[in-house]
């Protein structure tokens, strides 16, 4: 991203807090978080485990509702959305990628992509989505027959199938080795660049954050700082 270019805010998080009630105890997971996500950017959210990254991602993705504050996607206040509107929001605007892939073990890679396609109005063919992640030759394999990297790529294809504007990745390389991690991260960068996707990636791994256009640092449930990364590193140079 060019620092001087002014981009549209696609999603804004305003003073969002989330408190979980565990029996008698209240656990604040997110405190007064405010951040704008810009169209077409690669946003890294970095922090140790328990810092509130996943909670933030869940708020952005319409997976959970904040205790206070507002999350706005373009003009839509998703904190006020009904259950059904949230479902539609996740279906059409968001693509999720999870640390443990979360593929349905009893379905093939192709079927797993089909699961997402069946409920969207997108016109993408499941094979096309697999091609985007270089997995078309493994389409008929079940998750248990794929390597970790392949499984994550299948999950990525599934996330892309609905043609979402926003890709939310929760520690996508957390369960992968370096080689597979590079492959997946490279793909995310490419998708951002070539398809103009907005990518939000959360990680506890500082090394990865160098890939992002901006880096949000989290600690103890708050967004500690947001830095602009003028020169994102190429994937090949990432080491950990």
């Amino acid at each position, binding site marked *: 991203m060019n620092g001087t270019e002014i981009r549209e805010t696609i999603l804004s998080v305003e003073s969002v807090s989330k408190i979980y009630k565990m029996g008698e105890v209240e656990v604040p997971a997110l405190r007064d978080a405010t951040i704008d996500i810009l169209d077409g950017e690669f946003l890294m959210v970095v922090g140790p485990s328990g810092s509130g990254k996943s*909670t933030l991602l*869940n708020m952005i*993705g319409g*997976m*959970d509702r904040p205790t206070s504050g507002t999350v706005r996607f373009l003009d839509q206040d998703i904190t006020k959305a009904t*259950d*059904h509107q949230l*479902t*539609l*929001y*996740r*279906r*059409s605007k*968001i693509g*999720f990628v*999870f640390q*443990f892939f*979360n593929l*349905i073990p*009893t*379905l093939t890679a192709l*079927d797993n992509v*089909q*699961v*997402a396609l*069946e*409920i*969207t109005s997108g016109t993408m063919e499941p094979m096309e989505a697999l091609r985007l992640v270089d997995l078309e030759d493994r389409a008929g394999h079940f998750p248990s027959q794929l390597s970790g990297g392949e499984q994550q790529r299948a999950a990525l294809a*599934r996330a892309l199938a*609905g043609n979402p504007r926003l890709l939310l990745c929760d520690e996508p390389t957390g369960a992968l080795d370096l080689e597979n991690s590079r492959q997946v991260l490279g793909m995310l960068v490419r998708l951002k660049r070539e398809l103009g996707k907005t990518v939000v990636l959360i990680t506890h791994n500082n090394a990865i954050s160098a890939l992002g256009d901006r880096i949000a640092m989290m600690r103890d449930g708050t967004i500690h700082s947001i830095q602009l990364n003028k020169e994102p590193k190429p994937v090949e140079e990432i080491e950990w």
Partner: protein
Amino acid sequence: MVSRVLLRKLRRDLWSRKGSLLTLVVIMAIGIGYYVGSAAVYRDLDGSRHRYYTEYQLADFTVDLKRAPEWAVDTASGLPNVRTVRGRVNMPVLIDLIGVSAPVSGTAISMPVTRTPVLNNILMRSGTWFSGNDNREVILNDAFARENRILPGHRIKVLLLDKQHELLVVGTAMSPEFVYLIPPGGALAPDPARFGVLYLPERFLQESCNLKGAYNQLIGKAHDNSRTALDNTLSLIARKLDAYGVANTTPVHEQMSVRFLADELTGLKVGAVIAPLIFLGVAALVLNILMGRMVTQQRPIIGTLRALGYSRGAITRHFLGFGIVVGISGAVTGILLGWWLQSLMCWMYKMFFALPSIDPHFYPDIFLKAIAISVGFSILGTIRGVRFAARLEPAEAMRPPPPEKGAKILLERIGFLWGKLTFRWKMVLRAIFRNPFRSTVCVLASLIATAIIFMAFSMVDSLNYLINYEFENISRQDFAIALRDPKGRRVTDEVKNIPQISEVEPQLIIACDLRNGPYRKRIGVTGIERGNRLYTPLDDEGRPISLPEHGLVLTKKLAEILNITPGQIVTLRPLVGRRQEVRAAVVGTVETFLGVSAYADISYLSRLIGEEWSANVVLSNKYKGVSTEKVMNALTKRPKVVGIGDRVRSLSQLKKTFGEFMGASIGTMVLFAGLIAFGSVLNAALVSLSEREREVGSLRVLGYTPGQVFGIFSGEAFLLNGIGIVLGVFGGIGLAYALSAAYSTELYRFPTIILPGSIILSVVIMMIFIGIAQLIVYRMIRRLNWLDVLKVKE
């Protein structure tokens, strides 16, 4: 909208649990099979009965008289609520068959000489109606003719009032009056070979029975044939026709054959509700456990689907599909099983009931109901899991489930007890108490299964006891010779003088009206000679009672009907002789399981009918080694003999009829109940195993053998099922008592018999079923790839 891919997932999820589901489907199928079979047979039987009764005009009431002139029919017809009346002759006969060494008993009934539709009409099965030219023609009861291989054209010899007639068999027929035909005199089972019904031309029978221009039985139809209306009408008829010696009045619902059939239909109706309820209930509970586990296992998948934009509705439909598939599979299998049961039951009923047709028909509405019931129950079984899945917030679903409650179980608080337990038992107890629902279902399933199995055995024990009690302990005679009219003392000597006879004992059986205030009952009072040995009514402790010189001893059921206790006075009116009302003290009660009756001293009873001493039944024993046929032949040649009861034959007939039937139904009950235990034990164990795979893996890493791991798991099953079995034995005893109470009718009562042998047998059978299920669990533990289990994230 149903997602195609999710359907594929559903199919594979189902397939991967095929073992569990198969046992579930079997349990459901049994429930549905019971429902379909019983409901369909009910309709087959009820429809057949209804058509038969209507088409062949079964009478609403029967009035037995000594002798009523033909015009008494008009008198009766003119009474309120009476629609039509037909007079007829009904006379006991003896039939001398070629090839059968001893004459057999029967009943002769008059029919119009030309075929006209009359009350209690007969359905011709072969041959023709009377020719009208020759009076000496007979139409035989079809079953009797078949059993004795008599065809139209054959001749039979019939003894009517001591006079032998040779009759030409012109046809065979059946009647709605005798759908369940049991020989008179305390038999329980039909004996078509040894008891016949003969239809004879009216005029001929009247003349042969000294009833020229008269009848001894009126049968009729009423406008209102409800119970009370019939009772009122009958007492009116009895009053109006009193001069003709009304001996007995019977409303249609008290007619033996009608009652047996009605009782059977009621039983079917009850069975069509209770059995399915038990089986489907257990299946729903087990499905509940299975579903709960599946939803827990699929939490991340549910979360992912929700993240992808699947609605709660879509999740609900997807998981509900699980239940629907199980329900439909259960229904389809159940319908097939039900169809088979229906055919089997129809075949069985054909042996018991003489109906024109008992054919299994298809009832699509029953099938549809079966599907609805089955799917309904399986949805009931899945709904808890489905609701849990649908309620999961996507973010929550993505997180691993909250760790199992680690809190101490109640037992752990009892320090000294808990401290004494081995590590293994601590694990077992914790597993049981941390899954209270599953543990309860497990106990409940064993309880139900044990109770059903014990109840089945207890039914056999009860029937055996009853038969033994009635046919061995109370009755000990070889023959009961029935005489046409009461005779003096000479009659016993006469029988005693027959060379083959070793022992005789007279009895006087008189139909009487007994009344205690508003409670009344018409029964046969049996007069017994002192020093009785061949027929000994027994008291509560099974000791023969000694009859008082005056007064009556009632069977318990009769005392209950009359609402009377020993020491009170009952009003008694014999229906023969002087027919004067007298007051008699109730001296005691005795226990019987068949019918209701009262006993009195024979001289006392004789005096009530205006005689010094008389008897109309002579019980007798033959010398050992003498053939029954020889004695029967000697006895039937005597005048005034109208029937001979053969106790040994009745007993064997009873054992034969009920033996086959009981054997089949007990076997099925035990098998079905065992499957409940097997299915629920297996499923609970599989779910427990899948939850604790990592535990198994950890134990195996520590060096436990599969057998030792199994020991820990089986401890849970054996403890829960052990509790279930113990409770089930009590439950079974309760059921046996309930069943005795439910089947306590005037016709028969079943004693509650609790034999230790049956308890042990039930427990052993349960242990076998549970053992088989546990063997499967053991095999799974052995085959579990525990290293992989440990590698996978929970």
